[in-house]
């Protein structure tokens, strides 16, 4: 019987926001037993919610919160109903501990002693204040791999700087390289930040690399991973242009960095927000494109026949192309052009994605039942293995859902000890204490 790659590996996570929980989700997907160490005494920022108590005024139709809580209702347990958290919470366990009290830290220590990986992405100082350092953990368990992923890293003059994803985005140079290229001020909606995805992937790669090395050496390791550094290399062109030529690259909007033209986003039929993207990278594709759209007169204009001409007259070409696309559905444009060998594809929105033929034929979405939210369709796996396929083994984890499993089965705690610690609220619980006060 084939096993998942990380079967038998146990990961403890104290992670917040996105990059950390994302990496740990993928470690869970790979078969690890991932345990979120949470706490009913402490509501972490931007993780199971942006606010512990959401006032009715924040839940008005159209608001951010209204869009993200199941059925637009906070319910009795909002921390288990939040899309921002639930989409990365599969294949994990959750237990609750009070890490601020010595007995709670004692339980944490016992868990660290039987774990392979500890993963955290808190601001610098947070883990240290609790005494959860690599020095401590490696003394309890010399084989443990401790990965720390703050935004700026654990060394350097900015290490204590505060920064969310959007701040790190600015530091990596991405903010300067994105956005419309026809406006002076980079104040555009840059809703998707690069560091979270980059940090998630880098974190999994780092843990697996460390585990591989541990298999050879028998030792554990500390991994210092700065969020910014997991993303900066993705802007290599800009870095190298400055290094080699002292040139400062700026955004090119929706244009192609390497001169393919036309290249842009065009309106389609069917609604005010229907768009298709087309990139033409050769004379051959240009000829195929002209033919596919019915060889209109303007397509045989000499000026557009070669790459430099298309580049120079892009603005004019965009208008002509849009005249054609605006008479067609965006998926129709994709099919017509792709069949002719021309790169084209629709701008896929949230609703589109769930009906997309490619994603659905590959079973990208997974049907999952969670006790608080019921049965819904969730985004699935980011890659596939031919022999050790990943599955959703556990639904998005509820707060403290596995207290019993972790304390009894993983730590073999005796009943009387468990009862004593639970009575003192050092372990256990599944609702934030502050919520009903």
């Amino acid at each position, binding site marked *: 019987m*084939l096993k998942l*790659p*990380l079967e038998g590996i146990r990961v403890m996570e104290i992670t917040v926001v996105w990059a950390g929980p994302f990496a740990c989700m993928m470690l869970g997907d*790979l078969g690890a037993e991932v345990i979120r160490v949470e706490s009913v005494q402490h509501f972490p920022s931007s993780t199971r919610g942006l606010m512990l108590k959401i006032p009715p005024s924040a839940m008005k139709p159209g608001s951010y919160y209204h869009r993200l*809580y199941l059925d637009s209702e906070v319910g009795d347990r909002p921390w288990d109903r939040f899309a921002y958290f639930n989409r990365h919470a599969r294949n994990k366990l959750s237990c609750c501990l009070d890490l601020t009290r010595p007995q709670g830290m004692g339980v944490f220590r016992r868990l660290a002693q039987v774990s392979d990986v500890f993963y955290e992405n808190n601001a610098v100082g947070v883990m240290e204040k609790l005494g959860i350092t690599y020095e401590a953990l490696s003394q309890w368990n010399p084989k443990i791999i401790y990965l720390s992923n703050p935004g700026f890293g654990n*060394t350097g003059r*900015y*290490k204590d700087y*505060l920064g969310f994803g959007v*701040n790190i985005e*600015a530091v990596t140079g991405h*903010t300067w390289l*994105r*956005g*419309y290229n026809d406006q002076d*001020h*980079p104040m*555009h*909606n840059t809703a*998707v*930040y690069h560091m*979270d*995805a980059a940090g998630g992937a*880098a974190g999994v*790669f*780092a843990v*697996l*690399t460390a*585990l*591989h090395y541990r298999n050879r050496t028998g030792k554990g390791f500390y991994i*210092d*991973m700065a969020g910014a*550094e997991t*993303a*900066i290399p993705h*802007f290599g062109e*800009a870095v190298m*242009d*400055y290094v*080699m030529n002292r040139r*400062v*690259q700026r955004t090119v*909007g929706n244009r192609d*960095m390497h001169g*393919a033209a036309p290249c842009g986003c*065009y309106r389609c039929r069917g609604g005010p927000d229907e768009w298709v993207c087309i*990139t033409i990278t050769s004379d051959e594709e240009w000829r195929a494109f002209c033919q596919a759209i019915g060889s209109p007169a303007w397509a045989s204009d000499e000026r557009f026949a070669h790459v430099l001409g298309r580049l120079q007259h892009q603005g004019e070409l965009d208008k002509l192309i849009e005249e054609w696309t605006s008479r067609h559905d965006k998926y129709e444009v994709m099919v017509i052009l792709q069949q002719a060998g021309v790169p084209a*594809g629709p*701008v*896929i*929105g949230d*609703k589109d994605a*769930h009906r997309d*033929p*490619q994603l659905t*034929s590959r079973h990208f979405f997974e049907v999952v039942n969670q006790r608080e939210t019921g049965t*819904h*369709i969730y985004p699935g796996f*980011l890659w596939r293995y031919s*022999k050790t396929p990943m599955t959703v083994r556990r639904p998005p984890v509820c707060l403290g859902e596995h207290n019993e499993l972790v304390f009894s089965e993983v730590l073999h705690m005796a009943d009387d000890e468990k009862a004593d610690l639970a009575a003192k609220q050092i372990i256990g619980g599944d609702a934030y204490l502050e919520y009903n006060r």
Partner: protein
Amino acid sequence: MAEQPLSDVKVLDLTWYIAGPWCTRLLADYGADVIKVERPGAADPARRLGPFLNDSPHPEKSGLFLHLNLNKRGITLNLKSQAGKKILKELVKDADILVESFRPGVMERLGLGYEALEKVNPKLVMTSISNFGQNGPYRDFKASELIINAMGHTMSSCGLPNREPVKRGANALQYQSGQMAAAATMGALMASRLQGIGQQVDVSIMETHAGSVDYRTQNLLGYIYTGQECPRVDPREAGVSIMPYGILPCKDGYVQWLMTTRTHWARLCQILGEDEAEMDRRFPDLYDMTRKGELEAMTANWCSTRTKWEVMQDAQASRLPATAVFTAADLVQDPHFQERQFFVEAEHRAAGKLKYTGAVFRIGGIPWEISRPAPLLGQHNAEVYGGLGYTAEDMVKLREMGVI
């Protein structure tokens, strides 16, 4: 050079452009022996892409190629020739991993698909990176960075309402897919080493983005939970309170601000040099958005007399999340990243001494260095083919017959 975590791992890299080469650079960065396989003559098309040293196009001076292919050895091999296929299989015998990013079906047509290679090496991990995956109705579709943004569910929420959405910067999404492929590959390597099984890893660039944990999957699930899609919003109208939550201009550039809590309010008052009680009287409701412009003007005024570095330093000293909007120039010269030795220098035979981005993470106690610059075309033919037992005369013949 100190032993690296992946020193015992051998990788055959058949990839071109960005996603595949970034995946294999990560493996090479941590010590794997990565052999980059290029076509004799035609080579990796990324050699044709800028930026070029001194804007002078040259296949050995592409900054993009140099950056992506650090730490790898390079050979030339014509996989369409029978001799080339035979040689590749010889290399596969001793390899742990093979990464390819051809259009789905190409490797099979060459007789080098997973089924064929598994027979040569049952423990081989074969990572196949493609635009949309190895199957499905879009399997043979072409893509570009822009189209990946569009179809990877990354673009619909970015940009302003009332005009077209706008993609992310540069070629970031292709790099990210490569980073994900490196993680996926290592997972399969674990299974290979621990269970003795090889397998194929199917990385769809589209899925590496559709499944990404940030606003993207949040929005996918939000739609399922509430039926509402995420619109594009003008950041000047968005934000959770009247406090600046976006980019403000300053003397020499821009700064990214993010303030959301009452604690931030107190600190903001302080750096603006205003009495908090007075400000509370002036702005009694932090959520009365009609007052947002006024507060933003006050903050912008404060920024306008300061450089972006002064703004960042002063704001951070008061524990406010503000960061300068860096350019690549700022980044390469930045003292924090210099202190962390993030940028490292290497000497390349054609391009000379250049700085590159370095370690994406550091494993404690193991110093990180560049082991070799990007390979010249076919630079390691002699040592790799010699290692297989081919003599110098063999290699001449193979070169003459267009095999290497």
